């Protein structure tokens, strides 16, 4: 080894240092390779387990991978447009599959909103409404959870734990519980999404509050402002841009979330998508997917643009 040849020219203490370094290096290599081996082992065990408990096996199903894409191809490209805008189809044989005009929402005698656009609007509205509710409660709770504004550790702890529970509680369960009480419709989705939003936004909000400059608050304290006045005039103006940024970020996430919740019975376009896929209605499925894709993309771009305008490039990380 080159290094051992080198160490012959070193002094005694130099050789000691050299040897020590070699030992450390060897140990680090050992740990790294052990860790990697463990990781590879875990991955293979996981893959085997997942494949074993799956209904179809990976390699058996692999040749059929694109079957679904093939199934999705409609008779002609115009079918997608007809499905999306609820135009009558030339293939209409009275079955549900080609009965596109069925779900039209008539505003007047002749003017209608196509079904999927109507449902997409409903989903968007679910997202906005529940985000607004979530922001309102998250806003109030965040000041109670911030260390610099709430000196009482008990209140702080209780509020933080509450937000943690709201955040970690599976949305399906909240939706399912409200579905059992309220029956089908958008309200269970609103409840589920907004409860999750309170927890998620509350955390981001109180971190912003804790990082805010306390000098305005001190000034207000000096002239005898009470707690609400201090928060409202001293802290809120500072944190508002950041709050707005997080609000928009959350809105993006909630548009997706309300689609998902719709599919497990919460109304909106998610339900229709699940039905369309389940019943093998290819043109309808593609129409909904395209609509969803466009909407989500548009919402993302719009909110990103608005955030850049409001707060600049900061605070762009994703948060769940």
């Amino acid at each position, binding site marked *: 080894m080159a290094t051992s040849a080198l160490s012959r020219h070193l002094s005694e203490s130099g050789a000691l240092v050299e040897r020590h370094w070699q030992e450390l290096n060897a140990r680090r290599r050992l740990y790294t390779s052990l860790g990697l081996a463990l990781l590879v082992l875990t991955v293979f065990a996981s893959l085997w387990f997942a494949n074993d408990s799956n209904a179809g096996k990976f390699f058996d199903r692999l040749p059929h991978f694109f079957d679904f894409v093939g199934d999705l191809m409609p008779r002609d490209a115009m079918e997608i447009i007809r499905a999306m805008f609820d135009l009558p189809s030339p293939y209409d044989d009275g079955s549900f599959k080609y009965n596109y005009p069925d779900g039209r929402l008539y505003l007047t005698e002749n003017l209608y909103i196509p079904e999927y656009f109507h449902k997409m609007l409903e989903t968007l509205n679910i997202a906005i409404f529940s985000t607004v509710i979530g922001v309102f409660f998250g806003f109030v709770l965040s000041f109670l959870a911030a260390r610099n504004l709430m000196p009482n550790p008990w209140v702080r702890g209780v509020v933080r734990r509450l937000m943690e529970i709201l955040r970690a509680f599976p949305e399906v369960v909240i939706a399912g519980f409200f579905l059992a*009480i309220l029956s089908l419709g958008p309200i269970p989705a609103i409840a589920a999404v907004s409860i999750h939003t309170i927890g998620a936004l509350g955390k981001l909000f109180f971190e912003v509050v804790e990082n805010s400059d306390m000098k305005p608050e001190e000034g207000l304290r000096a002239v005898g402002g009470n707690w609400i006045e201090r928060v409202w005039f001293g802290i809120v103006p500072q944190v508002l841009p950041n709050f707005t940024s997080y609000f928009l970020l959350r809105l993006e996430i909630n548009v997706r979330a309300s*689609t998902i919740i719709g599919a497990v019975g919460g109304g909106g376009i998610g339900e229709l998508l699940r039905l369309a896929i389940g019943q093998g209605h290819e043109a309808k499925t593609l129409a909904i997917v395209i609509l969803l894709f466009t909407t989500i993309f548009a919402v993302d771009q719009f909110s990103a643009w608005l955030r850049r305008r409001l707060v600049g490039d900061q605070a762009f990380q994703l948060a769940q």
Partner: protein
Amino acid sequence: MIASTKPSAPEMEAIAARHPHLLQSSSNKRLKAALIGASLVSYMVFSWWFFSVGHVLANANWGIAGTYLADWISYEIRPDIEIAPDGTMVVSYQRNSPLGANPNPDWVVLEKETVTRTVETPAAAVQAPKPKASSSFSFMAPNAALGGNQGAGRQNAAQTRTEEVVTRALVTYDGSTNIEVAERLVKATHAGETFTMAVDGADTVTPQGPLPRWATQKRPGEKITLSFGLTGWAEVEGDEVSIRNRFFGWANFLFDTNSPFFGKSYGEVASLILSGDRIDPARSNLALAWNNILYNAEWQHLDVWTKLLQTVVMAFVGTLFASLIAFPLCFLAARNITPNLFANQLFKRFFDFLRSVDMFIWALFFTRAFGPGPLAGMSAIFFTDTGTLGKLYSEALENIDDKQREGVKSVGATPLAVQRFGVLPQVLPVFASQALYFWESNTRSATIIGAVGAGGIGLKLWEAMRTNSDWENVAYMVLLILMVVFVFDSISNVCRSRLMGRSAH
């Protein structure tokens, strides 16, 4: 201590008079605030109407909500006391009672009497055999020819027999609440009040005296509902008293009613396992007990744990593969590393596509491709997260410090070595931290895609909720999920702190 620095009221007024512009925000700003406030309020009103929130809330069954919530942490025992017209009673329990096949709880005290009475038994033996309706064609109306004959056969035979009957039943909910049924009278005691109802053994209930606060009767003669708060409730009808006694906790959590260990105390079970004779000669008592716990019919421990493990595995493998694929791609997407605009845009749009199709749609797609199960969920997480992580990674790359790269370049390193020694050390902690964060967050969100068949505990949760009676199972699964999420949260926090230093997150 400094005395209050607060200016007196006249002083403040004087200051305000001298500097009026400081205390007045510009009209433009005020208008803007008012506009935002007004549009927010009108949006809320619109949504209230759009979703008909008021109507839905008014039609909601909030009483059921309370029962469902109570079901999360408690269970009911439901003895039904049927009252015959002569005042005798028969007590029966729900099918699959948590108390086992032969429940005789000590809070139900029955007084029995041996009486000799005349019972009418239907004379089944004399009944004429039914004519075969379809075998031959007949002009006559069904049963016409046999009508008289059958009527004679149907005559009931009066029998006199001696039997033991229940004449008095006392059900004790707790110290202050009990219900006593005797001599066609139902006496309920709750919160220091005693309320008596007369039942006729057929269909009428008559309250004796005014109804107390905890009793409701919608129409005279109809059933009376008694609610005792958290301990339970009861329904009194003319011929039946339905008792719903609620107990705190999860019944039969370890052993179901079919298990030989059912109903034994912990000590008894322990001694059976340690030193008892073999219940099942084929295996030891410990193996039998463990098997009984795993295959508990009500709680399905093994199934729940397997499904939970599926969720964890889905999140783990999905995120790991996503970060492995996103790692090389993000170098191509970062404009400072790869100065080719076309390649940058191509990969960035590819990431956007993966991300914005949404995990849920990928999940539906993959359940069709692979069949329902964790492979589908894993692939869905993999696809979505490749998009998300790719985007985040390439943004992290675009934010790096260029000096280190220049330094490595200046000593004549190959392009690969520039990335290895100039770039990687800066971004690797960020990459790992993001991957850990998404691993933990996917464990949480994988429950939802499970509900549409993509494997994991989601479907199990969804099924338990759809039946509306297994809320304690829902609570159990939620608790397990929360525990797993908490553990992963802590693990990934520790890893991140070690990678990035304490202050970085």
